[in-house]
Structures are given as C-alpha cells and as structure tokens.
C-alpha cells in the first residue's frame, strides 16, 4: 500500500497493468522494503555487469587488433562465454530490481535507452556467433572491427545509461 504506482509511461494500459501487477507480487513487495536482500540483488546485478563489460571490452580491443599475439579463438571462447553468463545473470537480477518499481523505471528515459543498448548488444553478439561461428573463425577483419565497435558502444552505453537511471527520476 504505501507504494502507489506512478502514472505513467504514456504507453499501453495493458503494459501499465502488467507493471503494477509485478510491483504487487508478494516477494517483490517485500523486497522493496527489505534491507539486505535488496542490497544483495543490487550487488549481484553489479557483479553480472562486471562480467559483461569485463568480457566484452578486452575482447573488443583484441578484435580491433590489440594483443594480436594472443590467439583469437581461445580468447573469444573464454570472454564471450563469461560475458554471456554475465548477461544472463544481469537479466535475472535486473528483472527483479525492475519489478520493485516497474512503473517508474519503465517511464525513465535512461532506463529506456539502456534497454535499447542491451537489446542491440545482445542481438549483435548472438548474430555474430551464429553467422561467423562460435569463435568468430569465419569473420573478416572488417567484420571483427564492426562487431567490436557495436559491442563497445552497446555495453558501455548500457552501463552508463544504467547508472543514469538513479539520477533521472522526476
């Protein structure tokens, strides 16, 4: 009760009702007022982001041509995997954090921009691995540069706009 959902993202009513439903779920409502469980989920979201950014940035730099003596295939195998696991964990912890204030976050411009970056970054990664093979063995240098470029923009963009979410509510 002492949390009346704020209107509104100007979007669909069905979506708004869904967000309100998320906020009122019992575990979500109790998480909103808990101290340590909220902090723990917050921390695990940060941990997941560290895996994503900590994987994609060095990998992108390698794709750009840095550390050219390090075998690309080995590096892609390790860093893509850890970044992918990080992304999965970030989606889970992020969904829970989102649910505690779904109406508010969905209307937050920084959050919306973040979602665009995450969607683009994730689909670019999936597309790259599907098209060029798991360790990108079929990609030309040009393609590798393009993948690295999109990856850097999206994941740094997601991190930065995600941080801005906390500084943006009305």
């Amino acid at each position: 009760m002492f949390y009346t959902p704020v209107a509104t993202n100007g979007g669909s009513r069905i979506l708004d009702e869904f967000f309100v439903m998320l906020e009122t779920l019992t575990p979500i409502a109790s998480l909103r007022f808990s101290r340590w469980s909220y902090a723990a989920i917050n921390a695990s979201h940060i941990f997941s982001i560290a895996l994503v950014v900590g994987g994609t940035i060095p990998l992108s730099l390698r794709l750009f041509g840095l550390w050219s003596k390090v075998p690309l295939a080995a590096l892609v195998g390790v860093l893509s995997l850890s970044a992918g696991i990080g992304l999965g964990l970030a989606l889970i912890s992020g969904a829970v954090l989102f649910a505690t204030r779904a109406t508010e976050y969905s209307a937050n411009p920084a959050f919306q921009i973040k979602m665009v970056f995450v969607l683009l970054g994730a689909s670019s990664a999936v597309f790259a691995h599907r098209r060029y093979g798991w360790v990108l063995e079929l990609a030309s240098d040009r393609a590798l540069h393009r993948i690295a470029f999109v990856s850097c923009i999206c994941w740094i963009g997601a991190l930065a706009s995600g941080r801005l979410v906390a500084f943006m509510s009305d």
Partner: protein
Amino acid sequence: MRKFVTSFVVVLIVVVHSTSLALAHHGWSWTTGGNISLTGIIKSAQLGNPHGVLKIDADGDVWTAEVGQPWRNERAGLKPDDFAVGVEVRIVGEPSSDINDKVVKAERIYIGTKEYVLYPGRD
C-alpha cells in the same frame, strides 16, 4: 583500424562524460550544502528501495522530498503509516542546487511534535 580506435575513444569519452551530468539523487553532490525547511501536506508517498519519495504540497508548490531507504526511515523511528496522504510534514534537508527543481533531500523530518532524524551525522 586507427579510425575504429579513434571513434571508440571518442564515444567512450562522450558516454562517460555524460554520466557526470548527474541530475539528482545519490549522495549530496547535487545539493546546495545548506539546509532549508519545507512545510507542506503529503500528496503522495512512494516508499521502499532504493529510497522513498514524497510529493509535498507547500502552499500550492509541489515539492519532491527524498526520504530514506526503508532501513533508514525505520531507524529514525518512522513507520510507513507516518507518511499517509494529507499529513502535514516539515522537512529539513538540502535542496537541489537548482532551486527550480523543487527537490529536497531530507535530513530530519518533523511530524506533529516529533522529530525523526534520518542522518544523525549531518547538521
């Protein structure tokens, strides 16, 4: 290759810099450093993590008052019911450095005759 690295660095600088255009909320860097006292009627309360937000009608001006996280409000002796709509409340805290934002971060809250201290270490 050089082009990619250059544009990467440029974008990195732009994106990272944009995060320093912080608008409000965390910490005290966005506030004036001095306290104001704001009295008004609670119009709405969004309590809970990451921190609570009150809308306060102060003589027709609607202010946003940031109150504590649940544990901080609880430590100060505040219960969620204390922030019921229609209650008159006095907030002492630091306003946003742009006064037109009408945002204040509460350090102490007065309801009725009682004082609730959210940040005991701050004046």
